[in-house]
């Protein structure tokens, strides 16, 4: 049993937050409330990222994911006026139960596999040890080891922006 420490308390609170609001997101009927529950889940995940010595990723999750992508979701929901979801007649309850069981089974299998996996040996030595001066390291890696991926990513973002514009243009016929 790990000793009670500030880290453990923060972890417990963050995990309750993340899991609780993820469940809320799945259970909520109104899409707006689902989005907001997901925002809180992302805050919990950001707290985890800080604990895992990745503060840059944490702030990226809040800034980009919670602060931009989910705002986009919210805009689209408002644009399509999906305020009240249509009354869900449960026409196929069997499918719902099967889906639930499948998800639980997969979750169990994955957890078991993750916990039992041995620490990999014989892989190539790690790039750099984090925990100190992480942000300059990320910057340097982006422009050296991961340069191709970085450039491809910028191209991808351009394509996505153009594609989104084209797809949502109204065609006046």
């Amino acid at each position: 049993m790990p000793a009670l420490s500030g880290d453990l308390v923060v972890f417990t609170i963050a995990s309750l937050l993340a899991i609780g609001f993820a469940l809320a997101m799945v259970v909520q009927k109104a899409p707006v409330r689902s989005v907001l529950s997901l925002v809180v889940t992302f805050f919990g995940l950001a707290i985890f990222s800080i604990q895992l010595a990745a503060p840059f990723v944490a702030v990226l999750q809040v800034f980009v994911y919670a602060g931009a992508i989910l705002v986009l979701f919210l805009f689209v929901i408002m644009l399509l006026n999906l305020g009240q979801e249509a009354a869900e007649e449960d026409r196929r309850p069997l499918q719902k139960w099967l889906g639930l069981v499948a998800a639980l089974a997969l979750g169990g299998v994955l957890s078991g596999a993750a916990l039992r996996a041995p620490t990999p040996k014989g892989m190539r030595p790690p790039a750099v040890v984090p925990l100190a001066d992480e942000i300059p390291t990320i910057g340097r890696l982006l422009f050296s080891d991961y340069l191709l991926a970085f450039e491809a990513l910028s191209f991808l973002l351009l394509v996505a922006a153009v594609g989104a514009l084209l797809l949502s243009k109204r065609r006046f016929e």
Partner: protein
Amino acid sequence: MTGTLPGVAPMAVPPAAYLVVGTLLFAIGLAGALLKRNALSIFLSIELMMNAVNLLFLTYARMRGDMAGQMIVFFVIAIAAAEASVGLAIFVALFRARRTVDVDKIALLKW
């Protein structure tokens, strides 16, 4: 399955805990993707699954002392942004054509 690296303080919370939370969130996201009928809610559940995987990547990065995990997460977040914009544009176009985003009703390809 330890979180200890030479020369670095050990993790106060055992890494197994992060892995369990990550896979749990993944399973919740999967349940949402399977059970919801609103296309946007399904998309949200997929985003949750991606973030659960991000958490796993970060845990392994911290355990092995490898920055590659954090770089992967960086790229995944950026790609999720691109994917969300295109996906939502598709939903908007779909809504304009079919006046609904209920996936049960968008069933033109069925037999």
